[in-house]
């Protein structure tokens, strides 16, 4: 009897220790990022670092503004393209899809999320970027390129298909299955009585979806989109291929640009001293924004108020 008690105690301690490992890892990540980025943050000052456009190897002055802007721009462009598609696909799956093919369609869309990001990068670089450059880019340029003021943002200035637009496109494909499955979960939680009462009042299927199902899961949908934003911000391999990692001001969405992750992937292994510290500072920015996004999205999905 007592030996069994000891064994139980030992197992209890073992499981408690194992659950502490991840806590220690998270704390170590935070400490390491702060410690390694400290020299850069002290040298430039945190605010000056965030809002400096410079990235000068010879003078060793590095600012976060361009990679940060690239990360935010590419993620938001991706999100803008992905959310309507994902929610449409989720509506199809929950409301329309015949039961016989439902599991096939759902698995297919989920497998899209299982493809490793380096494969998206390879495919994006070899197949999608040339396709976009040949067919989509001229079309967008034709429609929007001659507009006053903003038109120049849609004119192509460089060849090769490696640019902000391609990077955003591949990102949007990568977050599409992610938002779809979260939206589907949210839609499935709509009480059937609500839908049935709408239909009993004579609402069409679309009206039921638009006026009952979507409003009922609004908060969770917002959470899904925010969570996808977090995914997009931190995505590395595909973006590193497709954005071109160019440190220059952005003159068009068809020009190469840089993101935090592309700068890290391309420059980390050759960086030393203050440049290395700068890259850690970028990682710290990424980690902090990711934490905030995670908290907001979890609260939204749980249906709680944000503040």
């Amino acid at each position, binding site marked *: 009897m007592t030996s069994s008690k000891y064994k139980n105690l030992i*197992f209890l301690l073992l499981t408690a220790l194992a659950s502490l490992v991840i806590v220690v890892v998270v704390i170590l990540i935070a400490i390491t990022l702060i410690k390694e980025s400290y020299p850069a943050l002290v040298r430039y000052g945190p605010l000056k670092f965030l809002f400096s456009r410079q990235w000068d190897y010879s003078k060793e002055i590095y600012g976060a503004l361009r990679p940060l802007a690239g990360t935010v721009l590419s993620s938001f462009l991706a999100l803008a393209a992905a959310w309507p598609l994902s929610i*449409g696909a989720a*509506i199809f799956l929950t409301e329309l899809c015949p039961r016989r093919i439902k599991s096939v369609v759902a698995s297919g869309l989920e497998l899209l999320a299982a493809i490793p990001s380096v494969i998206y990068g390879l495919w994006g670089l070899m197949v999608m970027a040339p396709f976009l450059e040949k067919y989509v880019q001229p079309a967008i340029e034709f429609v929007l390129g001659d507009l006053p003021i903003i038109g120049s943002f849609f004119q192509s200035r460089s060849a090769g298909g490696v640019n902000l637009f391609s990077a955003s496109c591949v990102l949007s494909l990568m977050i599409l299955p992610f938002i779809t499955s979260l939206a589907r979960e949210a839609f499935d939680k709509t009480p059937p009585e609500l839908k049935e009462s709408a239909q009993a009042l004579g609402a069409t299927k679309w009206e039921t979806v638009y006026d009952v199902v979507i409003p009922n899961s609004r908060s969770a949908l917002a959470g899904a989109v925010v969570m996808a934003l977090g995914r997009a911000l*931190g995505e590395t391999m595909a973006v590193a291929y497709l954005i071109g990692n160019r440190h220059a001001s952005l003159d068009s969405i068809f020009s190469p640009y840089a993101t935090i992750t592309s700068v890290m992937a391309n420059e980390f292994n050759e960086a030393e001293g203050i440049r290395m510290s700068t890259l850690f500072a970028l990682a710290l920015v990424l980690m902090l924004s990711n934490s905030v996004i995670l908290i907001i999205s979890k609260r939204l999905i749980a249906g709680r108020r944000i503040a």
Partner: protein
Amino acid sequence: MTKNVRKRRIKNLLALSLCSLCALFGLTILGWILFDVAVEGWKALSPKLFLKDPAPPGVMGGGGLKSAFLGQGLMTLTAAVMGIPIGILGGTFLAEYGRNLKVSAIVANLSDLAASTPSIVIGAFVHALLVAPFGGFSGWAGSVALAIIIIPLVLRTTDETLRLVPWNLREAALSLGASYHQVIWSIIYRSSLSGLLTGVVLALARAAGETAPLLFTSFNNNSFNWSLSSPTASLTVSIYQYAASPYESWIKLAWAAALVVTVLNLGLNLTARLFLKSRKY
């Protein structure tokens, strides 16, 4: 039929067709990617891929990726050996011993934070911890980075799976005089085995497809070796480096490696799906 009703029906039809097109778009993209990877990869697939090391770009034939296969296998395996037990035991604490503790909720949230951390940040972290102080890239550092990806995934699926086991099962076993660890080992683990396996397989699939954490830790190595204390090649990093190269023979190698990685990854995901289906709770 009044005009209004017809208008609503047309709107209904239009909107629902658009939704169907969205789903079709997703499936088309999946098909497009898989088609290209299969066709391009198949063209480059040969026994040489598994039996030879990469050759310099000028050399005819381009060599193979023997070291990358071995390195990827060794690192994923090492990461699994480190990560899976920690994940399962940690998840057991959250779901069983610490079920009602406030600490458990904090641990679960931190674990979600770790799982959502961009994998390139994990790579940079392990670089600062295990590469810079020890004088160079190593397969061990790569394994640790992959283990950090595995742990939170396994931990949370274990936690969620064990919570699904009905509480009276535990009470029944405890009332027979079993101690809690016996209940966990012989009742709870056993009855939630397929759920646990789902989590483990999915985590392995994630780890086997990761590139960013390996880029700064194990880097790459063109020569074949069994040791994890030197830089270690992996398929994913090889794809990343070769696809960006201007040499056709290297780009072919990248496609071949991509085919292998994709098949492996989708295979693991489908396996996880089978486990999920055979779940009891």
